[in-house]
């Protein structure tokens, strides 16, 4: 488990905005390792984990994007059925709410990117449970 810095970028629902954003990152040599997009009818918020978060934030601000950095918890465990269920059961028992999360699997490893309502508490709960 570790904390990860994540970018959140506000994007209008306009064709090409996503392409513009990814092109800016690509041209600057910044790689994305995970992302998710939360959408509503008028706008989306793209959440990206990148190789150089502070550099990416400064770059995107200069290019006129509304962007903010926040901390997420990343839980990495061997991928298996029931893993997510256990983590969520733990959260619910300890009264931790999940604002949002996303996940992916690579080489048998599951990575859960979690934004809890209380980061410190969540970190200590996970630590106590060897996650």
């Amino acid at each position, binding site marked *: 488990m570790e904390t990860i810095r994540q970018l959140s970028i506000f994007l209008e629902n306009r064709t090409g905005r996503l392409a513009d954003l990814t092109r800016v990152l690509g041209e600057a040599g910044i790689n994305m390792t995970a992302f998710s997009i939360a959408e509503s009818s008028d*706008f989306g918020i793209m959440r990206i984990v990148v190789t150089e978060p502070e550099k990416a934030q400064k770059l995107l601000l200069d290019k006129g994007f509304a962007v903010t950095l926040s901390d997420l918890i990343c839980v990495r465990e061997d991928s298996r059925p029931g893993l997510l269920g256990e983590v969520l059961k733990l959260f619910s028992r300890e009264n931790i709410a999940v604002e949002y999360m996303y996940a992916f699997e690579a080489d048998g490893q599951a990575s859960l990117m979690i934004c809890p309502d209380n980061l410190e508490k969540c970190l200590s709960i996970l630590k106590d449970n060897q996650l």
Partner: protein
Amino acid sequence: MIWNDSYECMSRDELHRLQSSRLHDTVERVYANSPFYRRKLQELSLCPEDIQTVEDIVKLPFTVKTDLRDNYPFGLFSAPMSEIVRLHASSGTTGKPIVAGYTRKDLANWSEILARTFTAGGCGQSDIFHIAFGYGLFTGGLGAHSGAERIGASVIPISTGNTEKQIQLMTDFGSTVLCCTPSYALYLAETIEKMGVGGKLRLRVGFFGAEPWTEAMRREIEEKLHIRAYDIYGLTEVCGPGVSYNCSEQNGMHINEDMFLPEIVNPQTLLPVAPGEIGELVFTTICKEGMPVLRYRTKDLTRLVYEPCPCGRTNVRMEKIKGRSDDMLIIRGVNVFPTQVESVLLEFPEIAPHYHIFVDRVNNTDTFEIKVEMRPECFSGSVGHVLDLTKRITHRLQSVLGISPQVRLVEPNAIGRSTGKARHVTDRRTIY
């Protein structure tokens, strides 16, 4: 500070006598020299002898923009071309431009009223004026220029455009005063921030006009540029900038009544409104030689304030223009002014002071959408916050306007910037 207290602080009685005599002289002048006005007066069986006092003004016919257009280019002039030393024109988006002609005396009077304006803002010889109004046919640039020169300041005739270069010169030259449209002031402020040169500027005062702007916008400009922001008002048909000006109270604009007679009329009945009521501002020029105008309907809506001003000036004040009668939108039967929208939006620190209103008609109902820009530093990353902000703005607009708009948050800089007058509305209904 007062530039000319004999005229700016004249007793009301003396002013009334002066205005009456000048009004009579003006009617005499146009009757003798302007076929257009002679015809109009004769149609009403009026001759100059019928106009002896200010009160007789209600006998006179009104003049409207189309009169100038229909008599393009010089049909409303009251002086021969040999005496006209300057021509200005305002951009006509539809039809022909409005042309104004000035004699030497007109130009001297024009620089006089701008001198009064700039002195009221505390400016003088030691100031360095950065004039970012357009120079050319537009009255803003050359008008402000002449006034700044008259008070002995150092004038930079930079005009509009090339914003980064402007800011470079502003810091290199140590400009202390800025003159431009309020929209451009905001754009300059944004660019100054981006260039990171705010600390190097020596600006202390700004004079803004040529478009309506709210008190909230004034506070925004004062905060962003660290200056005192003064309102100036004018229109090409009457003279250009300088017709009225803020004093240090920043509470209404003093009208140069020794040169321009103001009236407030009901735009439908054209009758004078009760004292203190809002209506359409009308001006009669009483000093102009080149192109005097009688009862010119400005289409700007405001009220007059006769209460004495703490600054000591006795000339009447007009409040900030609420809107132009032709800026007013009627959406689902409700009157909406862009300035109302502007005041509400500026209550929210999370959004930038840039907006655009889109009105359309879909399925026989008016649609009303407002795009507002998010400030990058206020983005929290949460969908909930964005939705909540949108909801709060919508709710507030609904309670002020009486109808509910569709509010859309857009990205920073998504709404175009303007170096001149900003266009805040796109009304697609007019196409039908």
